């Protein structure tokens, strides 16, 4: 009985994590602009990775494996937003402009409000 509950919880966590990872990858493909792609990939990957690791943690029980999973989860939890922020900051510093609504409407018009790169 308890094994069934553990399997159910672990399966739910793994399934939701896999769903988030696939959604993030789809956003990485389908979004129209670099910054929107970064938004899709960066946000969903953090939660998806930690959900998958939590599902593995439930499956492993209390052992050294859980400690390693906790280490990986904590590390990903801090480094994924950091590297996403670093990529965004580097792109903005290099002068890559975000695509705004006036651009999309007027066919790459000249009134981009983020001129200060």
């Amino acid at each position, binding site marked *: 009985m308890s094994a069934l509950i553990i*399997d159910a919880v*672990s*399966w739910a966590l*793994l*399934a939701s*994590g*896999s*769903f988030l*990872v*696939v959604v*993030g*990858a*789809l956003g*990485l*493909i389908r979004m129209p602009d*670099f910054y929107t*792609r*970064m938004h899709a*990939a*960066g946000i969903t*990957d953090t939660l998806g*990775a930690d959900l*998958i*690791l939590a*599902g*593995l943690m439930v*499956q*492993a029980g209390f052992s050294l*494996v859980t400690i*390693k*999973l906790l*280490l*990986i989860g904590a*590390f*990903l939890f801090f*480094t*994924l937003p*950091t*590297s*996403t922020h*670093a*990529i965004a900051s*580097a*792109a903005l*510093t*290099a*002068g*890559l402009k975000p695509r705004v609504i006036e651009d999309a409407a007027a066919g790459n018009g000249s009134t981009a409000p983020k001129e200060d790169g």
Partner: protein
Amino acid sequence: MFTATMAALLAAMILALARLYVGPTLYDRVLAANAFGTKTVLLIGVMGFLTGRPDFLDISLLYALLNFIGTIAVLKFFRYRTLGDRVEPSGDGQ
């Protein structure tokens, strides 16, 4: 269930590879490489559980560390055009 998770991760990795191939700018490619590395970490961990050898988590932890360092190193290289001791904030952009 581990097999389903591995299939989802592999699909996400293929999509990230496609973005890495067609990405119009350099930063798209760096972002796709970063996402690919994250999914590699998860894939190695899940594969360890699938084959009943959770020792793979050590390799997974190593990949997590290397992925972050690699992303920061690539960004720093394309900003300053060097990885070493020249630290003046380059005036020539890019």
